[in-house]
């Protein structure tokens, strides 16, 4: 079947946001606010309607067939739902912002994510992938702060590099396969053929870069805390989770891929370790995105039906609670201007609603029973158990304790309680609270009625999170993590420090490399290059110039001066004939006439 791009019955939900965003600058007041919320809501409605006819569609523009494929299946649908819901929540959260550029970038970014989700071919996948990178960097730059501009450039540098790697992988893959179709790339190629292995590795590396898998993930905690208060909320959702979607689609295979399993589990712990050291509230939360995406990456590696369902469910739940957490930290940043934990404290007195809503997000990410993380994260841990991977099981459980430790205890303790810093905020604007409230409601709804989410999952699996053993073990783990927190509270005091991560290589390492090579380079330049220049350029050029000058003085000048001298001599002769006597002139005229007559006679 073919879908027409320009038609009244249907619209690509991604294009709706990307094109519709440009209407916002033309509107004012209530109409603008309404459009901001209605656009993503309409995209959500289209996604829901698409679920009635899941299929792989061709795409045409005004009757001409385009080389794109639009794929609607359960996997693309669940991601499209959460991306559109997130766009609605994000736009409500930014209703008070009087900066059209931010709204346009945010909607374009969300549209790009929807485009990736429905892309059935590598061409449109790549286009939407790059569009996401370009629109999201604006959300960093639009904070209009020198630090944000610099961070934005680093973000762009990394993503342009990732985009090129992806493009290289796609070109190699498609030329080997002879089609642009985006289907599963399978497990690591068994045959020893580089034309198959290389594209597999390149595409995996590019997608892992966007999923922030270490060591390719340092761009995330570097960039997200520098984004605008509202922009960061969008950023938490789309880039990493659309990468998770592509990972599931391309790399989740029944037998599993060992490399991805271990990278994911290591990633879950890596995020937690860096969160201990972190002092910037939003950067701490950014490290926990890495940790949580680690669960999803690990699940992709395991590749069983339960694992794929777990990755999808966790991505869904994660987008909502992470957005809620970033909204909370953003609200504090907005009203107090504070971003460092060692400068906060005591805000619970003036921002109790923000605190309460934040805590719902914190309970959800910590997988407290009756909150969304409990029903999604446990699927992945259970998938590791079912696969008899005890070390992965233990690593993921450890990271889970770390998540509660930081997001559920450390951050709220130092932000809202702790030593009173004297900072006095107030509750943020009402639209921000409404967005947080809706996100919080979703976290609780999914936690209490997991069936709502489970019905949408891509694979058919019978899984029940609320078993007695699971609930008591989780409560025990959370409770005693809290005990450990209070026992070691002194150790956890945030320090005004920053931590080295792999972004060191392009922030500091590059300048170190430059200073190391500068010595030999200078010697090379003044020695060899200088000599060669002298020999090859300067000498011949000067020689030719000297020759030309000699030519100029010898011939051209001589000719000109000779003509001048001749004229001078002739005029001196002429001068003697000018005597002033009429008889002389008459004589000369007569002589002239005689000469003419003589000439005429000779001629005749």
């Amino acid at each position: 079947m073919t879908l027409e791009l320009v038609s009244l019955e249907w619209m690509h939900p991604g294009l709706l946001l990307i094109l519709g965003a440009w209407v916002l600058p033309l509107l004012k007041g209530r109409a603008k606010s309404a459009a901001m919320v209605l656009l993503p809501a309409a995209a959500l409605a289209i996604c829901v309607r698409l679920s009635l006819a899941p299929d792989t569609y061709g795409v045409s523009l005004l009757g001409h067939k385009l080389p794109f494929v639009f794929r609607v299946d359960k996997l693309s649908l669940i991601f499209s739902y959460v991306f559109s819901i997130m766009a609605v929540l994000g736009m409500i959260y930014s209703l008070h912002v009087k900066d059209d550029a931010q709204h346009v970038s945010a909607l374009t970014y969300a549209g790009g994510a929807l485009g990736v989700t429905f892309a059935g071919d590598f061409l449109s996948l790549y286009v939407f992938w790059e569009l996401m990178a370009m629109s999201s960097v604006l959300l960093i730059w639009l904070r209009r702060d020198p630090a944000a501009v610099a961070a934005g450039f680093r973000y762009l540098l990394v993503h342009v590099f990732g985009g090129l790697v992806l493009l290289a992988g796609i070109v190699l893959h498609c030329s080997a396969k002879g089609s642009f179709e985006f289907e599963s790339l399978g497990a690591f190629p068994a045959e020893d053929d580089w034309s198959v292995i290389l594209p597999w590795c390149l595409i995996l590396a590019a997608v892992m870069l966007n999923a922030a898998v270490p060591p390719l993930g340092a761009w995330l905690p570097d960039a997200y805390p520098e984004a605008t208060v509202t922009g960061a909320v969008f950023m938490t959702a789309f880039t990493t989770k659309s990468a998770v979607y592509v990972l599931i689609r391309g790399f989740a295979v029944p037998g599993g891929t060992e490399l991805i399993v271990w990278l994911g589990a290591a990633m879950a712990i890596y995020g937690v370790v860096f969160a201990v050291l972190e002092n910037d509230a939003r950067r701490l939360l950014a490290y926990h995105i890495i940790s949580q995406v680690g669960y999803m990456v690990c699940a992709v590696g395991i590749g069983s039906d339960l694992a794929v369902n777990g990755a999808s469910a966790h991505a869904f739940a994660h987008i909502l609670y992470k957005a809620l957490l970033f909204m909370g930290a953003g609200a504090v940043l907005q009203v107090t201007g504070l971003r460092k934990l060692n400068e906060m404290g005591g805000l619970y007195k003036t921002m109790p609603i923000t605190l309460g809503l934040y805590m719902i997000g914190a309970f959800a990410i910590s997988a407290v029973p009756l909150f969304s993380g409990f029903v999604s994260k446990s699927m992945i841990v259970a998938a590791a158990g079912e696969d008899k991977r005890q070390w992965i099981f233990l690593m993921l459980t450890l990271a889970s304790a770390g998540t509660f430790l930081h997001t559920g205890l450390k951050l709220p303790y130092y932000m809202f309680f702790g030593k009173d810093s004297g900072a006095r905020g107030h509750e943020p604007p009402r639209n921000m609270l409404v967005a947080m409230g809706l996100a919080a409601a979703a976290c609780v709804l999914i936690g209490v009625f997991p069936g709502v989410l489970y019905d949408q999952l891509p694979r058919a699996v019978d899984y029940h999170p609320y078993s007695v053993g699971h609930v008591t073990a989780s409560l025990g783990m959370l409770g005693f993590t809290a005990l450990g927190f209070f026992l070691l509270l002194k150790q956890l005091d945030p320090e005004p420090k920053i931590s080295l991560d792999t972004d060191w290589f392009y922030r500091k390492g590059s300048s170190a490399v430059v200073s190391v090579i500068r010595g030999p380079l200078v010697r090379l330049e003044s020695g060899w290059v200088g000599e060669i220049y002298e020999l090859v350029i300067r000498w011949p050029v000067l020689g030719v110039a000297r020759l030309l000058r000699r030519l100029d003085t010898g011939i051209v000048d001589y000719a000109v001066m000779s003509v001048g001298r001749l004229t001078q001599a002739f005029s001196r002769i002429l001068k003697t004939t000018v005597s002033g006597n009429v008889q002389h002139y008459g004589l000369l005229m007569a002589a002239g006439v005689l000469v003419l007559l003589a000439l005429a006679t000779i001629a005749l």
Partner: protein
Amino acid sequence: MKFLERQLEDPVRVARIKRWFYIGLAVVAVAEIGLPLIVHGDHHFSFEGWPAFGSLYGLASCVAIIVVSKLLGKVWLMRREDYYDS
């Protein structure tokens, strides 16, 4: 909205909250040991069946994460805030 302030600025009430916290922990630990004897759950691994495994593993994880991360930070990772500016 003065509820939280009333609770947290009165030492007597803070002590009471602490007491309830410890009672809660004890109840959870006892439940974790006791309930599997009544309701048999399905474990993936034998260690999940150890008494109060979740609680003990939670405490151990928490301590391990704090100690190891802080150690890594002190000897290697942590730098002054203007590290990248200079």
